[in-house]
């Protein structure tokens, strides 16, 4: 099965990424991080990342990689150039997801087993605060101005708005069953909260906390219980909202103005988290059961490639070079 080099080159020209960078994927079962070149879409490295790495993010300067090593009860910090572990950060027990303040410090970490959100200073490596929240905290989102951090609790079915200066919950919004992820629009006008069992994405007005719209999903031929919204990402112009739909193996594209689903894109099995590259040209999805990531062309609204990574990929972040 040969390929003509010319045809491949042509294909690369037509669909190739614009800027070089690295895609870091946390492999929950493989206990590793897979590094994929964002230009060639080839795996360039895989390195150990402690036990059960899940949540993953990078510092604003792209130099540090933060990974929730859930079973080690710490956040591990890696150099994005050398892949060496630099140090660990205290996270409280079982860190699953976290969000970094837009300034790069501190880190807000959800502790699933302790019903807490732990606030950790990434420079002094100390815990600044522990905020009691609902049962089984999971999703973490932060307002673009950094004033509020939002935590979703899976069992309480709530989005808790926490003031980042007083560490107090100032507002709660009841959403559908098992909220997994919280994502603000860049202008801070809306907050999207996905509910895995409820099968919906609530569009919340952060100013007051009322739900202004509920996005529901329907794919012909797929049982509704498989349509489980998890990861959510919004383009910075707020026009396109991508929602990972777990075991339905689809990513929904939602219109950011009408909140109607426009399209379902077929990706790998059990699609979990999503991440844009810096220019928002491509969206990367982690597919936990098929052990790969799928790459979506954001403008063309189609899946262009899937790449094998480690065992059970969970989280993903793209760091520009």
């Amino acid at each position, binding site marked *: *099965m*040969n*390929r003509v080099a010319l045809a491949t080159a042509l294909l690369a020209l037509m669909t190739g990424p614009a800027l070089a960078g690295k895609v870091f994927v946390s492999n929950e079962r493989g206990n590793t991080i897979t590094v994929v070149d964002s230009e060639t879409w080839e795996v360039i490295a895989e390195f150990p990342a402690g036990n059960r790495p899940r949540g993953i993010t990078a510092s604003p300067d792209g130099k540090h990689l933060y990974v929730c090593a859930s079973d080690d009860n710490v956040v591990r910090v890696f150099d994005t150039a050398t892949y060496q572990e630099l140090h660990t950060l205290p996270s409280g027990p079982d860190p699953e997801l976290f969000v970094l303040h837009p300034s790069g410090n501190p880190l807000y970490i959800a502790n699933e087993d302790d019903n807490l959100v732990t606030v950790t200073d990434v420079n002094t490596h100390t815990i600044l605060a522990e905020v009691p929240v609902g049962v089984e905290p999971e999703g973490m989102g932060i307002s673009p101005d950094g004033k509020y951090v939002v935590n979703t609790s899976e069992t309480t079915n709530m989005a808790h708005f926490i003031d980042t200066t007083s560490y107090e919950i100032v507002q709660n919004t009841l959403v559908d069953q098992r909220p997994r992820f919280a994502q603000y629009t860049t202008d801070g006008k809306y907050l999207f909260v996905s509910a895995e069992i409820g099968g919906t994405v609530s569009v919340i007005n952060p100013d007051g906390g009322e739900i202004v719209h509920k996005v529901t999903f329907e794919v012909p*031929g797929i049982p509704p219980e498989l349509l489980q919204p998890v990861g959510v990402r919004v383009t910075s112009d707020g026009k396109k909202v991508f929602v990972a739909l777990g075991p339905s*193996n689809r990513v929904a594209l939602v219109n950011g103005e009408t909140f109607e689903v426009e399209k379902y894109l*077929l*990706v*790998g099995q059990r699609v979990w988290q999503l991440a844009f590259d810096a220019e928002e040209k491509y969206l990367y999805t982690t597919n936990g059961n098929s052990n*790969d990531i799928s790459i979506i062309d954001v403008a063309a609204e189609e899946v262009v*490639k899937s790449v094998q990574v480690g065992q059970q990929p969970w989280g993903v972040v793209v760091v520009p070079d």
Partner: protein
Amino acid sequence: MRPLLIALAAIVTREALRFARQRSRFVSALVRPLVWLVVFAAGFRAALGLSIIPPYQTYITYETYIVPGLCGMILLFNGMQSSLSLVYDREMGSMRLLLTSPLPRWWLLFAKILAGTAVSVLQCYAFLGIAAAMGIKMPVMGYVYVLPALVLGGVMLGALGVALSSFISQMENFAGVMNFVIFPTFFMSTALYPLWRMAESSMLLRDICAVNPFSHAVELIRFALYEQFNGMALLWTALASLVFLGLALWGYDPGRGLMRRRG
């Protein structure tokens, strides 16, 4: 050279006229793969769960998978249809007229096959157009690269049809061709399922699919549609074309072939 081209033009024109007059044939040739695409593929959409195999870069729905196979289906049915028309020609006597021409017989048969292929290719493009309108789109250049693949596949299956027609003595026997040629050729190929899926049920079935020249014609079309080149498939398809062309020539040779037996 000139008489050869005149003969080619005459045969192609005759086929084109036949084609133009039988618009229902064009429609029915399109309806068949469309029914498969819309009804059959829809039923299997969720059940099949295709993994990533070359030339695909990511996950695809079953509809996307069977489009090249359905192009192959058009070529296959048309090839057999021209076989049927050859039997008809023989019964009506126009075959005698054609074969008594002083031009080399291989050229006349080849022109006949080429004429049939031209019609098939047109139908394939019409089918690909409808599929694209339904949302099953290929890369733009794929529609260009697929042309030589469709022509070669058409010649191979057209030659098979001509070779078969020399074995069929009467129109009524065409049902046998359906049963013993079209169905096995189509079902025991990669048109409907990839090889790995066949291997899951039976290794023997997988091996039969892997040597079936129709599989290779379909794979050649599939790779070309995705701007890729499959050397193995090209080799097999070209080889099979030569063998079928040889068989067709032999079948229509009055000195040696089967024509003599039937007078």
